[in-house]
């Protein structure tokens, strides 16, 4: 295995036929090497050109950018981006009271700053991060709920849009990751009880669809509570999604744990480290590094999974858009509205993968 890969590297370094090739050579070699290849190249080029021309024609040349009159859009042959200008507030903020939207803007700024600051390795210091998150959580809570400092009280049932998506996602990861680590450790723990509990928990929850868990959190769970006791719906849903996330993530982390050579455990034992010392100082740091790509993968999936709340009537950005696009005057332009939502998801998803790539580089260079 090792020999094979080092050989490959050696050969590539010594002989690179592409390095001295002229453009014409390259084209001939790669795109027009035979009749069949030439045909394929031409067809592909035609399809691509047609597609890009359509995108340009529909999305830019004939598009309507700003108008408050849907009839202007109907008359145009291109995209109606005006629908986003016209409806961006209910799409981004859902049912939250219109006059209080500034609170959500402020909340998102605080949230994004906190997250970005926390992701920088130089700030990885609990004495800094814990107070930062406490302050952020309290100020976001005050902004979202209100009821103090002269802010109007807004119940969670009126929260919506992008801030809700962010909160669901953050709650999922913040609750879910520690649970995932515990479940993964439990599944490999020396104690049979811990092992049993973890296995049952993971298998039972992993075996049902997320939709089922959401329904249980929303519809079944309240039936078990004594009369008059209410647990906030948003909280129930966040915990439901987080637990689901944790079960999958636990298996990912278990994969990382299994990749740690026995020697590491034995070396720790010979230093007479306790179980928790071994786990937290030796095993977990290595295991999490190994499975970082898979963890990231799953975190990005979790962000998109928040859109499942559409089936339980929570107004995240996707539900809010669906509801807003019911307006008969603008209904025709739903494609543009959904493209906008897709762009929002893409922005956050891509930012996450870029960051994860960076972290992998840091790990490779030994910086973290």
């Amino acid at each position: 295995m090792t020999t094979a890969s080092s050989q490959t590297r050696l050969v590539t370094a010594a002989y690179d036929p592409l390095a001295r090739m002229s453009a014409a050579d390259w084209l001939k070699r790669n795109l027009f090497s035979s009749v069949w290849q030439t045909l394929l190249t031409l067809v592909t080029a035609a399809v691509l050109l047609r597609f890009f021309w359509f995108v340009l024609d529909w999305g830019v040349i004939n598009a309507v950018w700003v108008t408050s009159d849907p009839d202007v859009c109907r008359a145009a042959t291109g995209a109606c981006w005006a629908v986003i200008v016209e409806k961006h507030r209910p799409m981004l903020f859902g049912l939250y009271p219109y006059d209080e939207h500034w609170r959500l803007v402020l909340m998102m700024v605080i949230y994004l700053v906190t997250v970005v600051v926390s992701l920088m390795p130089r700030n990885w210091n609990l004495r800094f991060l814990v107070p930062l998150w406490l302050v952020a959580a309290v100020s976001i809570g005050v902004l979202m709920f209100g009821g103090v400092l002269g802010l109007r009280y807004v119940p969670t049932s009126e929260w919506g849009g992008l801030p809700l998506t962010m909160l669901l996602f953050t709650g999922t990861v913040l609750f879910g990751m520690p649970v995932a680590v515990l479940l993964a450790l439990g599944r490999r723990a020396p104690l049979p009880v811990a092992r049993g509990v973890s296995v049952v928990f993971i298998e039972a929850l992993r075996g049902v669809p997320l939709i089922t868990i959401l329904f249980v959190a929303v519809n079944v769970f309240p039936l078990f509570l004594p009369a008059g006791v209410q647990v906030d719906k948003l909280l129930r849903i966040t915990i439901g999604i987080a637990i689901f996330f944790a079960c999958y993530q636990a298996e990912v982390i278990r994969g990382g744990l299994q990749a740690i050579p026995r020697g590491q455990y034995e070396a720790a034992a010979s230093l007479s480290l306790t179980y928790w010392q071994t786990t937290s100082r030796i095993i977990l740091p290595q295991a999490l590094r190994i499975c970082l790509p898979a963890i990231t993968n799953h975190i990005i999936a979790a962000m998109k999974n928040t859109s499942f709340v559409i089936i339980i009537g929570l107004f995240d950005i996707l539900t809010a858009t669906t509801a807003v696009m019911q307006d008969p005057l603008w209904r025709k332009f739903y494609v543009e509205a959904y493209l906008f939502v897709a762009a929002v998801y893409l922005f956050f998803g891509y930012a996450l993968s870029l960051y994860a790539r960076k972290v992998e580089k840091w790990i490779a260079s030994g910086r973290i």
Partner: protein
Amino acid sequence: MTILKAVIRSVLAGVVAGALGASAAQANSGDTLAAVKARGEVLCGVHPARHGFAAPDSQGKWSGFEVDFCHAVAAAIFGDASKVRFVALSSQQRFPAIQSGEVDVLARNVTATLSRDTALGLNFSPPIFYTGTGFLVRKDDGITKVEDLDGAAICMAPGSTTERNVAQIFAARGMKYTPVVIENNKQLVDAYVTGRCDALTKDKAALPGVRAVDTENPADHVLLPGIYSKEPLAMAVRQGDDQWYDLIKWVVYATFNAEEMGVGQANVDEMKASTDPDVQTLLGVIGDNGTKLGVGNTWAYDIVKQVGNYKDIYMRHFGPDSPVALDRDQNVLWTEGGLLYGLPMQ
């Protein structure tokens, strides 16, 4: 593993059934109204996105026909129509939500049926909207009645009452059809518009909107006259709380009776001076109807003043100026040949 699964399933089923039984017993007479008053707002379950019935507007405010009935309930209880909290419910969620007490009343496109009344433990208000299966067809095809649709391809949503109704309508006439079943509403409408089927069938109340908005040229499409199935939409409450049920029922009757007496949002203050004892009773000038229902005596006045009578509410959302203009059809007073019949309020 299979045995384990079976055991888990039966245990879960038992627990859920037990919990349902327990919660059904929770609704005792008087509980709901007292809880609503203590809370200071009515929790009303609505459709998350059905324009005309319930949908957030451009400012994120709920608006629609069923939304207004929620407002009417709040107006009756608090004298303030704004004291409602709306809970958007998907169609799978709506019944568990009312059973578990997550909402006090359901105004969410619920068709009143026997099994829902009994097995689901609900009580239904008088229907607030009569509708049924309708058909939208292309004018060029020369289809004028449902009998002309023999052999047609028909677009419909899966699992809906509409799907069942179409099967019955065609079976009863000994006709054949090809169902084109599409889940996503937008794709369903597009399938009809692009000519994949000869007719689009949906709840009749939804078709004028499709015609006005989604077709290239609305004049090329016609709605077949007549309604081919019974879909009475009503508000629903939990069984067991008779006082709450009475209140919801009479809120609906009050909107019917106000229209019948000519008392509307525009003239309600003048009508207070009316000498007609029926109007005086309705508006709480004489009598103690409010006290009997457990609310203020001007409850019906507050409904009409703040929300309107049935006609006001209907015209606000389905009137000729609205983008989803809808003829009132059966939704007119019994005195005009319709089905709205408010019981006397003596």
